[in-house]
């Protein structure tokens, strides 16, 4: 166990030293995806506006005039898009990086950080859109935004661990790419991204309380929409973060040298 953890930390520290590699590759990835388009990466902002607008103005018309609901959906979508993209792309990570893994000695964590960086850059565009929506909805910048940033920071800290765990899952269980993809699509409706939980019984109650994603969302959302410090949400998110990191370190330590034989 100790040897495994040492191996994991060694891989991570080597990858951190090679930060120029994954930062450069992530930028190239983003650039390549929009290279020939007129708007370039701004398409990510457009996509975000389209989704938030659709949910606010089309699906939930009765609440559309409520600025707190607009903020609720805008922040919910920001966090959900980030999580769903990170997780679904992680499952096929090692397959996509097969030629690098089989042809170079780069540490495995370089690929984890490459995807993490990519997801963070993409989320940056949605974040700009979210800030704009919040300002237009009448939420002036105040100290509560700092509490929200704390929630975002926790999610960012959890990201490399989430990527690692789902990347190993995809390597050992290739079918998981489709299973996870479908679960995340369904998950949007089982997570309070655009619906508001106000003490209902039944499925919504369980989907709210027993869904870890709820706490990822609420940790960012509550400070701005409810003006409170999200103690419970941040505590649960913190525990989830610790658990996922423990699992990620274990997987990295035990299996990083075997991945090359699996892909």
């Amino acid at each position, binding site marked *: 166990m100790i040897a495994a953890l040492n191996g994991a930390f060694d891989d991570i520290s080597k990858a951190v030293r090679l930060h*120029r*590699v994954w930062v*450069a590759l992530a930028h190239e990835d983003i650039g390549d995806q929009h290279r020939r388009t007129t708007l370039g990466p701004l398409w990510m902002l457009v996509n975000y506006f389209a989704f938030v607008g659709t949910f606010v103005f089309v699906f939930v018309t009765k609440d559309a005039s409520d600025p707190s609901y607009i903020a609720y959906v805008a922040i919910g979508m920001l966090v959900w898009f980030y999580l769903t993209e990170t997780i679904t792309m992680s499952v096929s990570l090692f397959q996509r990086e097969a030629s*690098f893994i089989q*042809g*170079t*000695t780069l540490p495995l964590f370089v690929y984890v950080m490459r995807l993490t960086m990519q997801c963070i850059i993409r989320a940056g565009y949605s974040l700009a859109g979210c800030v704009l929506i919040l300002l237009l909805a009448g939420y002036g910048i105040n100290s509560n935004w700092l509490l929200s940033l704390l929630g975002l920071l926790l999610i960012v800290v959890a990201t490399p661990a989430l990527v690692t765990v789902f990347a190993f899952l995809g390597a050992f269980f*290739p*079918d998981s790419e489709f299973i996870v993809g479908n679960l995340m699509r369904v998950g949007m409706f089982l997570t309070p991204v655009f619906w508001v939980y106000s003490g209902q019984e039944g499925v919504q109650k369980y989907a709210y309380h027993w869904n870890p994603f709820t706490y990822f969302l609420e940790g960012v959302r509550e400070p701005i929409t409810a003006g409170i410090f999200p103690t419970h949400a941040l505590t649960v998110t913190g525990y989830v973060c610790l658990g996922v990191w423990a699992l990620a370190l274990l997987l990295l330590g035990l299996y990083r040298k075997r991945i090359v*034989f699996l892909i």
Partner: protein
Amino acid sequence: MTSIKLNNVSLVYRLFEKLTLSAPGRRRSALGGNISKSGTKQVVQALDDVSFELKAGDRLGLVGPNGAGKTTLLKVLYGIYQPSGGTISIAGKVDALFNISIGFRPEATGRRNIVLRGLISGWTLAEIEEKMEEIIDFSELGDFIDLPFKAYSQGMAARLAFAAATALEPEILLMDEWIGAGDASFQEKAKRRMDELAEKAGIIVLASHDESLIQRVCTKKMTLRAGRVESLT
């Protein structure tokens, strides 16, 4: 002092039965090689009891039929595969020429691809800058260097990949087949570059099916068969 020492190195992969929802008959292993059963598990014995020692100035040619373990041995020496038994001791900076086009991005310019390739190879930004003009000159791409890689002809792409891949100063050089690129005149230049590279490297390990090449370049020859050393001369 540059050296390589392998003692009873073996590499056994367990063939992971990937968890899958497909019918058992459709499951297939990801690897070839010498597959055998160990209890209920399938294992591949890729290298078996390989021992040899090389010192500065040695040029080792690896020969053997397909599946003999030549590429596997190179990847063990490079550190991509971790041996499952035996010991390896290597003194010196190891570089490898396995896939010279690895990491090249079609949308990026030639210049940007040199930077990316350098970063992947572990060069510092200063080293990349230092080698940049030399790589561009060697590849003879001229103004094309600032066009996207996808706009290059096959020959131009090969020239850039070759120039970037061979702009290294290894103490130990591992090669899976001798590489060449481009038209007749560039091939001559590439041959000279490879000769220089071989000359500069302290130790070379070259896997090839070309016996005459092995005779020309190498001072030692190791024949592998089914992962075992058949002869070392």
